[in-house]
């Protein structure tokens, strides 16, 4: 197990390095290949009437004139030992892990990332609980009542949930529940959990439910399919032949086997979401990592993009790792092979 963990950790670090290199390359190599000079790159970060002198100064401040390898090395060095930045009147030290300063508004990236993580985690965590409970319950009920009205209606709603985009259901839910019914008046504004837990939850109900609706739909379909498959397994027949009550058969025998693949996907989904629930955050104006990522990409803000990509990749890698470990805990066959 320890060996397994160490191997996975090394692989994760290698993956993060590759991800950062690829992001770097997309930012710098691709424009260069299409013929842009470093000054052209720098000109993205100066105002609309800036002269060549200003462009050149920005080029130097951002270090764009240096070889790509040196820029990359400085980025890595910053994360490990920190780095110094010129702020005008004084130099500022940015301690590790220093993900650099925004090219666009010159704020340090790491505190921004830390600031936004709880937002995304609040969103993803709350939604995850809802969608897991509702999705799995619906899926199980649907599977057990296969072909019944309950099954058809819930699978119909699930199909709608899978097909409707979040920016549609999200804005709709805001219009109905906040603007018309005057429930959740703060929806669309984030208040920290530590600031006011009640407002935190009430403001997040709509994004939670909207996001969970989409995901619960996926999970209901997944659980239903898995449950139907499991209920046909020989060991379910055995469990019944032993004289177990149907409830025990479903919960202890069928559900456990069904939930194993669901859990895998859940872990990865959660990791991806914590890396940034882009659409939901955009729709509900939540200042989380996903919105941060989109804003950074739109403004060509490399250090921020790198930072958020690294954090996102980290969470995805972490989620994969946790899923693998959990999988081994759940399924003895995985543990020993």
């Amino acid at each position: 197990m320890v060996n397994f963990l160490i191997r996975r950790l090394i692989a994760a670090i290698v993956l993060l390095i590759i991800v950062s290199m690829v992001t770097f390359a997309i930012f710098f190599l691709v424009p260069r290949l299409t013929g842009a000079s470093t000054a052209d790159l720098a000109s993205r970060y100066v105002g609309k009437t800036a002269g060549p002198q200003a462009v050149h100064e920005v080029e130097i401040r951002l270090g764009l004139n240096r070889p790509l390898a040196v820029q990359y090395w400085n980025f890595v060095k910053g994360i490990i030992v920190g780095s110094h930045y010129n702020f005008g009147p004084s130099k500022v030290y940015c301690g590790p892990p220093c993900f650099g300063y925004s090219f666009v508004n010159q704020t340090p990236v790491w505190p921004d990332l830390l600031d936004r993580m709880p937002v995304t985690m609040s969103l993803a965590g709350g939604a995850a609980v809802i969608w897991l409970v509702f999705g799995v319950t619906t899926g199980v009920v649907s599977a057990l009542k296969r072909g019944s009205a309950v099954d058809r209606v819930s699978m119909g709603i699930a199909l709608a949930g899978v097909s409707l985009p979040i920016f549609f259901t999200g804005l709709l839910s805001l219009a109905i529940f906040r603007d018309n019914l005057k429930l959740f008046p703060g929806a669309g504004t984030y208040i920290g959990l530590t600031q006011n837990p009640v407002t935190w939850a009430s403001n997040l109900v709509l994004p939670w439910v909207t996001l969970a609706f989409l995901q619960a739909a996926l999970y209901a379909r997944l659980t239903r399919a898995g449950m139907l498959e499991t209920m046909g397994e020989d060991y379910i027949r055995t469990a019944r032949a032993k004289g177990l009550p149907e409830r025990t058969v479903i919960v202890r025998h069928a559900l456990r086997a069904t939930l194993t693949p669901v859990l895998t996907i859940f872990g990865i989904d959660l990791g991806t979401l914590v890396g940034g629930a882009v659409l939901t955050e955009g729709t509900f104006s939540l200042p989380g990592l996903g919105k941060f990522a989109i804003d950074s990409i739109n403004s060509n803000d490399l250090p921020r993009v790198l930072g958020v990509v690294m954090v996102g990749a980290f969470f995805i890698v972490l989620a994969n790792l946790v899923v693998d470990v959990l999988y081994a805990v759940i399924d003895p066959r995985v543990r020993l092979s």
Partner: protein
Amino acid sequence: MRRRTSLAAVGAVLALALAACGGTGGSSGSSGGNGTFNAGINSVVNPSTKAGGTLRFANAGDWDNVDPADTYYGYSWDFIRFYGRALTMFKPGAGSASQQLVPDLATNLGEHSADFKTWTYHLKPGIKYEDGTPVRAKDVKYDVERTLDKATFPNGPTYFNDFLDLQGYTSPYKDKSPDKLGLKAIETPDDNTVVFHLKKPFSGFDYFAMLPATIPVPPAKDTGANYKTHVMSTGPYKFENYTPGKSMALVRNTNWDPATDPNRKALPDRIEVQLGINADDLDNRLIAGSLDIDVVGTGVQAAAAAKIQSNPNLKKNADTAPTTRLNYVQISSSVPPFDNVHCRRAIEYATDKQAMQTANGGPLSGGDIATHLMPPTIVGSKAINPYPSGPSNNGDLAKAKQELQACGKPNGFSTVISARTERTKEINAALALQQGLAKIGIKAEIKKFPQGDYFKLYAGKPDYVKKNGLGLIMMSWGADWTEGFGFLSQIVDSRVIRDAGNTNLGVEDPEVDKLIDKATTTADTTARGAIWAQIDAKVMDDAYMVPFLDVKQLLYRPPNLKNVYISQGLNGYYDYAQLGVK
């Protein structure tokens, strides 16, 4: 089974949609009020002098910067007056009255030397920062010095870089003098006097004095790029907090003395700005009344525009604000056959301006059809129509064909239209242009470019334009202020053309340059306006540009918002400094 599931899915969607329809019908929480459509353009809506309450702004994005040395957004120049006072400002008031400059920090408008190269301002006595320390003339100088440093403050305009007699000065942060005030171009003989020395004459310097660059910054409090987290206020409000990308809150600045400031009403007790709000949701909140104003002020989104158009209760709280923005097509004289003026004129006549207006949202949320360069709200703008495009502005094909004949291309030719990928309206306008030109045999191919690099790498790079034959370039240009120089200088003066990053996409005419110099040395505003109108007519005659839309923005003012009007001086934004909520 599958079919029934799909039916159930359709049912669920219908239920949602019905719920939404029922919803919008019932929601008119803020759609009442006594306003009338477009009332805010020439009059004050809901006049009030009652102080108190919280004015709630929202921004779909974020500022380029809130630091006075580093901002170039029009709404920012409007909003910054809450916490900063420049030497001059636009006069408060609805309609064209607001185009007039009045002193703010200064006692009077600038005194100039006969050659328009030296400008002197005197500061009002008794003006203090939020911490009670007095504002000194050298603090004004210090902020101008800061704006020169484009490495630290890349966003702001470069008028001071271009006009001051810098003598090599680049930045206060590289300044060797102990007080960091080594710039020779600005003198501060005493604490109340600032003298600017220009390297070339400029008669409109009072406009430069209006820029946030002249908002004083105390050197002791300057933290460079970090200063934005707490700008020292000289206005009626000061920073309570500002978290970029999330929120901003301003509270009353008790050291602001209204006696020194007749131009700001300062009614609300508190000002809040939510940043990064979903643009469509922002409109919904305005309409629902849970927000007071969209700080960006470039108009509502398409969804809300449709709602406003169809609902008279909403429409009466809306204004289609005129702006100083013009959408036009640049004709590249460097790309054959547009080196021939007749081929350019053929384009002028053939353009289907009506279709291009529709592509931009029509008269309500798009704007009016333009026939010359300077938008009507610019001082001195003279309505001319050198290339009439038919009774319904669909193009005069007969005239266009005559010009083609004169150009030696009676059967038309092929060319390229460039447009910005992200701008749907611009792409649609390009399509309308393409279809109009096809009627006289001109085959135009549309090429799309990313907007972030449009000027730096493509349309604003003469080499690229020539090599890739970008004959027609989709363009949109807004003035920095409602005066000829602010609108025209960056798009018609041949001397501003560089290797890349141009906004003058190819107007090179010594006569135009000469007229610009004449204008910048004319003191009288009216006379100056006439010269700019002359330049407008000259460029039109040479057919370098096809103006097609004077942009208007559809703004929504919730009925609970008080003292609302559109300031023409501020380019068609509501005058934020006068708003109230009580």
